[in-house]
């Protein structure tokens, strides 16, 4: 089952969250038919200072404990990121995120990857199964008022909008030669397959999803985001004061016949909107 976390930072529970966020999972048609459990997982947290942590994972269908693996990696990722941030704050490095360039971001996420593999191995030992039984993909981002850092391992997609009209597909999903092949955290070549992104341009809207939605949202011929898919989602986020409290639009969409006719797999969608930046964009465009 997907895990919904919108826990605030423990170090300060009295701040107004800067981002509007909502995430949902819908079970895929083929899984319902075959009685497979859902193996998607997601988690997100807001930290003081306009920081949003997000993670999405898709357990491998062939992995006996894929759901466990997926849930573990999203939680562990956010724990790792939160602890790192708190540690940085204690050292007075309040702007550590902004100062990450591409090589530093790469090293940072490699560190996270090692941590996750360690956690997975430990869980595998406890559960008396192979590491491979916990196989899952992973997509993680840390968004802040000045930009974003993100990693992707495997398939799924991350699309960002900076309010300039361009929806950017951040990573090309990692596919093997054949349809539905991908790479996992537990794969031997995980480190080489890790994709990392870093940008210091403020973000207005973020959409992260598992593979199930790729065929309807991403143009595969040139690996680009399909704007008519994302525009209504961004508008929903912009217009809705508290999406988590009015999730009908998103839930109806994810469970719609229209969508289920085009997709078979589990679908997880995480949407985030940063009103402060959105308003600034709007002000720019109305001069």
């Amino acid at each position, binding site marked *: 089952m997907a895990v919904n976390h919108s826990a605030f930072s423990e170090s300060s529970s009295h701040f107004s969250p800067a981002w509007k966020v909502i995430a949902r999972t819908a079970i895929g048609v083929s899984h319902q038919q075959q009685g497979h459990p859902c193996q998607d997982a997601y988690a997100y947290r807001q930290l003081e200072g306009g920081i949003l942590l997000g993670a999405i994972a898709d357990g491998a269908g*062939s992995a006996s404990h894929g759901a466990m693996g997926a849930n573990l990696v999203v939680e562990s990722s956010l724990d790792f990121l939160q602890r790192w941030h708190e540690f940085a704050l204690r050292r007075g490095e309040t702007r550590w995120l902004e100062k990450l360039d591409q090589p530093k971001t790469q090293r940072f996420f490699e560190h996270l990857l090692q941590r996750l593999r360690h956690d997975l191995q430990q869980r595998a030992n406890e559960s008396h199964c192979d590491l491979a039984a916990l196989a899952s993909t992973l997509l993680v981002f840390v968004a802040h008022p000045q930009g974003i850092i993100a990693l992707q391992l495997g398939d799924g997609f991350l699309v960002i909008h900076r309010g300039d009209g361009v929806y950017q597909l951040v990573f090309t999903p990692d596919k093997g030669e054949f349809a*539905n092949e991908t790479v996992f955290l537990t794969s031997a070549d995980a480190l080489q397959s890790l994709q990392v992104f870093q940008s210091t341009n403020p973000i207005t809207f973020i959409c992260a999803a598992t593979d199930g939605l790729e*065929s*309807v949202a991403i143009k595969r011929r040139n690996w680009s985001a399909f704007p008519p*898919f994302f525009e209504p989602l961004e508008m929903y986020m912009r217009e809705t004061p508290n999406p988590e409290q009015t999730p009908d639009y998103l839930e109806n*969409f994810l469970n719609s016949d229209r969508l289920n006719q085009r997709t078979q797999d589990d679908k997880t969608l995480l949407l985030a909107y940063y009103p402060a930046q959105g308003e600034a964009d709007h002000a720019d465009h109305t001069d």
Partner: protein
Amino acid sequence: MSVGLPEFVDNPENRCPVILLVDTSRSMTGSPLLELERGLAVFKSEVAKDAQASLSVEVAIITFGRSVSLAQHFTTVDEFVPPSLQADGLTPIGEAIEKGLELLEQRKATYREQGVQYYRPWIFLITDGAPTDQWQPAAERLHQAEQENKLLFFAVGVEGADFDTLRQIAPPHRPPVLLNGLDFSSLFVWLSNSMRRVSQNRVGDVIALPPVGWGQITS
């Protein structure tokens, strides 16, 4: 609030490519070829029953007898018209396999150009005889491809086929199957059911193929 709904991009369907290498040597004259043609018609109608498979499955047919020729280029079942086959000549299995592998590589290149995703391809060899050409290099290429998980190769022999050689051509873990009489229809029903499972396959799932009721696995 009247927010519209996300629109969907048009992506091509994932493809399941299947290549049939069909023996049209002289000994296939009459009932064998007729039954085979009937089997192809069954294949089309069976695959057409499954909405997903009928969008995904692409079949190509290479015949080998007097010559090796492309009797049917890759087509989805809705456009597939089973060709009528003529029997004549010998049994150049080696050349047929080489042509099949080339055809496959060309198709993959096309897929990549078009951004089309595809499942692991299947190659089916159907013969009633023994190869009359050099088959060893082709068999080696096949075994290599199988080992690298690049394709799935099935050898089907009609009664009277040279199974000793077929056993050397087929990959070690998938020995040739002796067809029950001329029951190509059952073979093609099985193939269409298998294609249906492939087109619904998730990551890394071991596909449980339907039981082979149309022949006996010879090992």
